[in-house]
């Protein structure tokens, strides 16, 4: 397995007086597909946001590929990272958001090509080719010239996936990517993610309330509550035979709430 691609060590994060994560530690192996489940406010989304550097870390260290994400090594000491370091580290990570966050003033194609061309990774024609390839993969090559407002929620989210993939990240973060979708549109997004999981060796972290999807998709499931990992294991263990009382009652509530496992 080698070094884990993500090492989270003793990480704490609070918003004002509200402590969300408190000394959290776990590793993610390269290529692993990880599902983070748990009640709202359990800190799972905060982990993704810390990894994408959307929130600042309060305490602890996160290593990506063995290199500290939020810190730099200076004379043997870890000091807070500057923007240059963060910029370099962000290149390894991509994220798909609950509310898509597409660029509404750009076409679908431009949404995908903007970052690769601006970061100087690709020439315009190369970026266009790559974007069309990715849009084809998510089944939206014919929408390339449309604006996001003309797309359905499921289509928007598939474009958002293509946009994140265009930078060829090693790690992809999916933050409740189907929660804002009409039920009949969830499937098309999950299909794309399934394909992605099967066809690439990207490391994928998924925060979700779609338990059946988490079960098929993940190599490992982490159940969070109150900013801690209450229980973790293979999906079949967690979903069929949860050991912890809190995991059991959470899964029961989700079934009672009409969601299937």
């Amino acid at each position, binding site marked *: 397995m080698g070094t884990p691609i993500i090492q989270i060590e003793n990480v704490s994060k609070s918003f004002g007086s509200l402590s969300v994560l408190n000394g959290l530690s776990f590793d993610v192996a390269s290529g692993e597909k990880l599902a983070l489940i748990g009640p709202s406010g359990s800190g799972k989304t905060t982990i993704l946001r810390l990894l*994408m*550097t*959307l929130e600042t870390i309060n305490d602890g260290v996160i290593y990506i590929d063995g290199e500290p994400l939020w810190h730099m090594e200076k004379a043997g000491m870890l000091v807070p990272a500057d*923007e240059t370091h963060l*910029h370099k580290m*962000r*290149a390894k*990570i*991509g*994220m798909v*958001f609950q*509310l*898509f*966050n*597409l*660029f*509404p*003033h750009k076409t679908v194609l431009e949404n995908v090509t*903007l*970052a690769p061309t*601006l*970061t100087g990774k690709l020439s315009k024609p190369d970026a266009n080719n790559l974007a069309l390839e990715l849009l084809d993969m998510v089944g939206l090559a014919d929408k390339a010239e449309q604006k*996001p*407002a003309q797309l359905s929620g499921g289509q*928007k989210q598939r474009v958002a996936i293509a*946009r*994140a993939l*265009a*930078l060829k990240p090693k790690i992809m973060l999916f933050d409740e990517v189907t929660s804002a979708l009409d039920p009949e549109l969830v499937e098309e997004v999950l299909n794309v993610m399934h394909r992605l999981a099967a066809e690439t060796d990207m490391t994928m972290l998924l925060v979700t309330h779609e338990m059946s999807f988490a079960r098929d998709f993940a190599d490992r499931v982490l159940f969070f509550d109150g900013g801690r990992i209450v229980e973790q294991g293979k999906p079949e263990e967690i979903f069929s035979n949860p050991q912890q009382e809190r995991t059991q009652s959470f899964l029961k509530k989700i079934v009672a709430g009409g969601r299937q496992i």
Partner: protein
Amino acid sequence: MEWDWDFVWEILPTLAKGVIITIQATLLGSVLAMVLGLFTALARRSPSKWISAPMFVFNDFIRGTPLLVQLYFLFFILPDLGILLSPLAAGVIGLGIHYSAYISEVYGAGIDNVSKGQWEASKAVNLTVPQTWRHVILPQAIPPMIPALANYFVAMFKETPLLAAITVIELMNAARSVANESYRYLEPMTLVGVFFLLVSIPCVLMLRHLEKRFAPNDQR
């Protein structure tokens, strides 16, 4: 009192000079207001309270006092402090500062209107902060600002007669002086009104068009 066309032709050249000053004051004042407004809008977003707080106070102070009083300060009181401005310069600076306070709000609202998710998405695709401003935030923030900006420029244009109070010979002052000399107010004041209407009406029509064109659409 009867309308006297001969008198109209006689005073027209004097009024035309006033028109030029009125237009100059509006254009220069607008440019100054846009630049100053941008400066204060950015300063108000500064993470440092020492920079942002005085800007909030400045804007509230400017918006809470009449333009006429501000013009008097610039023209009659600044010279006591050794700063001597020509009437037109004082007028342009007065208009510029006064409207910058409003325009600063327009900029701020335009920028705030772009959702936080746009900043986050830009970070997630690893754009730098300047790239995010240029390619993501400003292209979305500016179009909705345009009708509001245009609205303030029309308002500024209609307030230029206040400059007469600090001896700028703009249209209103020119009209008043010919009226004072001839004791005829009908023609000069009518011409002033007609001129303002002729400029404002197309502006208002254009504004309506802009408002429709840049109506906010789906932000996602």
